[in-house]
């Protein structure tokens, strides 16, 4: 039975000027290295062999959705963890086989509902590779803005709920306040807050309204202050550090072998970011950094996601500067709807409108797998076409699904209360896991 140990050499803050940890309940020997926490003498004898089975979820506020964990406990230490998923299974992939490509975009909103804009972008990119479409420059920049805004939004929800799980309430309010601002921006752009359906195959549902960029600039200039505030409250907070450091450690080899992606993988020290390694939407031309942790624990995952929000702001500023004028949609009546005024006044446009709506655009025979860096990790859409207007197979590669698969490995040997922190650090969205 492994006892819980606490790393003393923190990878970053939580240290005072002399490099010693501040007010962190650590057990160390004289050399300053961590030792196993022994229970105080005379408190309670070890109850050997008396294991308890407890059930967390599926309805539990700290499981972030309908996740069910069956835990075998030895005292308060987790011996075994058996996760159960599927309570939210809706058969998205099956339904997608009966829908045209533009109709599937509505379903992508609903899987990872914290990142619906990012999913729309990812699906449109996959479908466009399948169609052989090159989108316009303006559309590319708009999609980068959409993807990075929703990354910030998703990370803010993660940060707020993570704080609640650990016991801090104030950052939750600050995070959700700023998230509301992003929602207002998105509402102005596409008319919806949560289920955006913002993209179309070959373009966007709508161009940004006039004056929208002012709102975005205001956000990108004020948002870093909020981040600084939350940073001051959390990052060097002794309780925060004590509750997160050394938990759920994955080393780099394990993390790659378990297929982790996104902040989970980068916290372990593997600098794999789809935006850098397999770029899309011209991400290679943006100047941004990839934060990488060293110890692969919950605390490093927090630091990585926190830094990612700052990097997203950098990308947003660059995108706002370079946003070119020009059309958003490609000029191809076979895939893009004509303007409504033309569809009701010109014969040709009306026919195109009818064909696109009733028959749907048809890709050539082929298949494509396009992965993007979603806030949770590598999100891939694999589509197979047999030449008809509906895909033969539409597969979502859900990053939270693969990340969650490692939870038994991460929680075993830790305390029951740490299961909540580790689970929150994975940043799961059950809509994406169960699909």
């Amino acid at each position, binding site marked *: 039975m492994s006892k819980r140990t606490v790393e003393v*050499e923190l*990878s970053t803050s939580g240290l005072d000027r002399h490099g010693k940890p501040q007010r962190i309940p650590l057990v160390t020997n004289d050399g300053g290295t961590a030792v196993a926490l022994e229970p105080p003498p005379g408190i309670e004898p070890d109850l050997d062999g008396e*294991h308890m*089975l407890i059930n967390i979820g599926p309805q539990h506020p700290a499981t972030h959705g309908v996740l069910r964990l069956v835990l*075998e406990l030895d005292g308060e230490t987790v011996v*075994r963890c*058996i996760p159960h*998923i*599927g309570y939210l*299974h809706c*058969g998205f992939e*099956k*339904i997608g086989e*009966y829908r045209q490509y533009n109709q599937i975009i509505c379903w992508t909103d609903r899987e990872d509902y914290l990142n619906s804009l990012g999913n729309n972008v990812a699906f449109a990119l996959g479908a466009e*590779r399948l169609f*052989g479409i*090159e989108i316009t420059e303006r559309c590319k920049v708009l999609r980068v803005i959409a993807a990075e805004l929703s990354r910030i939004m998703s990370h803010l929800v993660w940060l707020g709920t993570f704080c609640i799980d650990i016991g801090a309430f104030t950052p939750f309010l600050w995070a959700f306040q700023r998230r509301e601002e992003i929602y207002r921006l998105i509402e102005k752009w596409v008319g919806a807050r949560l289920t955006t359906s913002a993209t179309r195959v070959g373009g966007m549902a709508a161009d940004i309204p006039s004056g929208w960029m002012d709102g975005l600039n205001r956000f990108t200039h004020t948002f870093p202050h909020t981040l600084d505030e939350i940073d001051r409250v959390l990052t060097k907070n002794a309780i925060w550090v004590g509750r997160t450091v050394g938990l759920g450690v994955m080393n780099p080899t*394990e993390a*790659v*072998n*378990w*297929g982790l992606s996104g902040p989970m993988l980068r916290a372990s020290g*593997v*600098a*794999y*970011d789809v935006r850098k*390694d*397999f*770029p*899309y*939407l*011209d*991400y*290679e031309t943006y*100047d941004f*950094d*990839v*934060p*990488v*942790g*060293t110890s692969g624990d919950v605390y490093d995952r927090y*630091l990585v996601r926190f*830094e990612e929000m700052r990097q997203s702001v950098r990308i947003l500023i660059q995108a706002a500067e370079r946003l070119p004028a020009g059309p958003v949609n490609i000029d191809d009546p076979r895939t893009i709807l004509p303007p409504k005024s033309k569809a009701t006044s010109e014969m040709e446009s009306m026919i195109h409108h009818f064909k696109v709506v009733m028959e749907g655009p048809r890709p*050539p025979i*082929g*298949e*494509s*797998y396009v992965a993007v860096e979603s806030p949770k990790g*590598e999100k*891939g859409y*694999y589509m*197979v076409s047999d030449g008809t207007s509906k895909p*033969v*197979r539409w*597969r979502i*590669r859900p990053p939270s*699904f*693969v990340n969650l*698969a*490692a939870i038994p490995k991460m929680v075993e040997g830790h305390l029951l209360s740490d299961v909540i922190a580790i689970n929150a650090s994975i940043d799961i969205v059950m809509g994406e896991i169960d699909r």
Partner: protein
Amino acid sequence: MTPFQVVDTGTGAPGPAPATPRNLPNRGGEANPSAKALQDRFGAAIKRAEVVWGETVVFVDSASVSEVIRWLHDDASQQYDYLSDVTAVEYRDADVPIEVVWHLRSLPFRRFLRVKAELQKGQPLEIDSVYDIYRGADWLERECYDMFGIQFKGHPDLRRILMWESYKEGFPLRKDFPLRGRFSRSEQLRQALAQNPEARYSMEELSIADAFAELPEDMRERLTKGERTGE
């Protein structure tokens, strides 16, 4: 311990910086060098290789999948250390075989490879598991089994994952499975109400519960025989 850091590059692979692919052709184009290496190494076990929309697809004989993927993972010139996805494709044409698809990534070389194996219909849908090569294949293979009924030989815990363990309607993503399910709504409701709530716990979980002695006779009997799934 090195501190938390911010790096501005990816995995640091040698070669030119990657760029967003543009103007990909439907068929043909530059193939992933691993396809050629596989054909040289395995010969007839590699049925064919093609490039679709810039992505290299290698069709592997279904008997040697495990061997091929292990080589891709272990060999120093390939290093496909990251398994993105395991899934399957069934075509609408009933004569076309079911394909099992592995999406592999080599993080050191920044390569992407799609490996496919064909399973003829009418024969048992069995293929080697890659669980012992990539631990991440665990849930992905379970989902593929759950949705398509493909048996992954060598997977230690192949049971349903998204559907419940007592689900008896078959495999939902198969083309012969109707969109609304096999049974009527009333029948589905009847089955749901008739379920034994204890079956929500798998046999493995029940075996560690205190309540083992209070279980129904038949469940205890199945448990002692080593059964792992409920109902």
